[in-house]
């Protein structure tokens, strides 16, 4: 029994190590000169350099990609919040006979293969003269953000105790001010988690951005993948630095999202 526990703990520790080590190694490589990366025996001791990072930050294409990513994802998430949260509240609090169908419809948008959506959209945006613009990307991403935020916010609103809202109605609040002043603040913690999740989802999106942009509207994941297409000519340190830059924003939400997970499962318990 003792031995079993020991093995279990070792396996867990190894899994924990595997979870972060590849990423840490990438971060380490981004501080290395090329000679320290291209070695048959991995080098842990080396003279660090900031050349890769400053090269990445100094490149126009990377900065444009970063700007495009921030704008496209930021605006799409904002649209998702404005349209998704009220709709989720209405479905959660005023259920009618279509509520189940609406929920299924929102979920089923996730079944659509991205290629199937991206090919026609490319043709449509070309015809409208909006191909390779942020507008096209934002509109397309809004489909993602609205549906994901709605899907996650419905249970969050359902978890708000009904009595609180009913008490507010008795106090003379209208339906809209109950939403604004009661439901939104009470559910805020879970809602922030849902919104953060939708941001991570579009930030990480690749296929649609790849097909809807050719030069002006490229997002950061596209720029990063192009760096690698130049093969071994690009020093690995620079590639590693771009991977680190691309990965930082989603990781900023680590705390929010793990709190969100905890709150989801705490609700189930009670």
């Amino acid at each position, binding site marked *: 029994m003792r031995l079993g526990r020991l093995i279990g703990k070792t396996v*867990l520790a190894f899994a924990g190590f595997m979870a972060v080590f590849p990423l840490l190694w990438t971060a380490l490589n981004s501080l290395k000169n090329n000679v320290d990366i291209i070695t048959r025996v991995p080098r842990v001791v080396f003279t660090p350099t900031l050349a890769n990072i400053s090269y990445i930050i100094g490149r126009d294409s990377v900065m444009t990609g970063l700007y495009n990513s921030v704008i496209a994802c930021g605006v799409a998430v904002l649209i998702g919040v404005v349209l998704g949260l*009220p709709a989720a509240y209405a479905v959660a609090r005023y259920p009618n006979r279509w509520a189940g169908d*609406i929920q299924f419809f929102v979920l089923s948008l996730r079944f659509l293969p991205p*290629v199937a959506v991206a090919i026609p959209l490319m*043709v449509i945006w070309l015809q409208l003269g909006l191909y390779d613009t942020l507008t096209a990307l934002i509109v397309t991403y809004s489909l993602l953000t609205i549906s994901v935020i709605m899907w996650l916010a419905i249970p969050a609103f359902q978890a708000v105790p009904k009595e609180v809202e009913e008490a507010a109605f008795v106090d003379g609040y209208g339906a809209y001010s109950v939403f604004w002043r009661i439901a939104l603040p009470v559910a805020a913690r879970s809602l922030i988690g849902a919104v953060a999740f939708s941001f991570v989802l579009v930030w990480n999106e690749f296929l649609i951005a790849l097909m809807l942009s050719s030069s002006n509207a490229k997002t950061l994941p596209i720029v990063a993948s192009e760096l690698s297409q130049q093969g071994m000519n690009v020093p690995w340190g620079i590639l*590693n630095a771009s991977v680190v830059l691309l990965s930082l924003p989603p990781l900023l939400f680590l705390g929010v999202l*793990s709190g969100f997970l905890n709150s989801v*499962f705490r609700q189930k318990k009670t």
Partner: protein
Amino acid sequence: MPRRSSLPVTFVVPTLVILLILSMVPTLYAIVIALQNRELSSTAYSYVWFSNFVDLFFDRRFLNAVWVSVKWEVVTVVATMAVAIGLGVLMFEVASPRLRNIYCLLFIIPVLLPRVSAAFVWKFAYHPLYGIATYPYRLLTGGLIFDPLSKPATALFAVASVDVWQWGLFFAVIVLKLLETLPPQPIEAARLDHARRWQIHAYVTLPMLKAPLISLMFVKMIESLRSFDLIYVMTRGGPGVATETLDMYAFSQGFIESGKVSYASAMAVLMMIATVITFTMLWKRVQA
């Protein structure tokens, strides 16, 4: 709740209308394009009706892509669930509450990474000469070369391992949280009956969690359809066509090799029909 309020209508209708437009327009247009013979190189096109679909069934690369996609789906879903349940149960059994919190935080990190980042991280790690993941092999064999991404037999599994790294660890956290929500009485009863630890989980806790675990598997099946970024960065469908899934093949037909947009769209439409029918049926069964 007040009976008569304009709130449900004003809140739901605009959002649903926008969602319907944003989803139905491209979906229907994908079908229209699939019935034509559009190409990237020219603006002229005409309707060819079902000939794209007929061609697909005689296209051996398409049939290969279907097979690769099915393999990808099965491998990633099964491996993810196995890793998730294994690590979830382990955390539940041997980790103290504090350690559990630390592991939960660590295990969420990979899934937050952009797929492009994850793909790069592992593409470097799998490099036959300089990779960190192939280093132990070089060390043990005295410098022999092992290149998992360029061997047809291992390439799919090497890419799938990245997907499992991201999702398996994340789902382990969810399995742990699910185990923590269970009432302790049945577990204690089983313990009093001298059941072994693994028996408690195999016969008591996991059967109790059957419904959420099936939902979890359902989510993974949907997410596994989005393999494109990983494969695009790591192997581009290669070596040969060993990792060419349907979305990868559709993309290369439409945009890299021949610019046959309509042909690519026909493929995408078949994918769409297959997934929508499969997942709708599965979802109804899960709900029932």
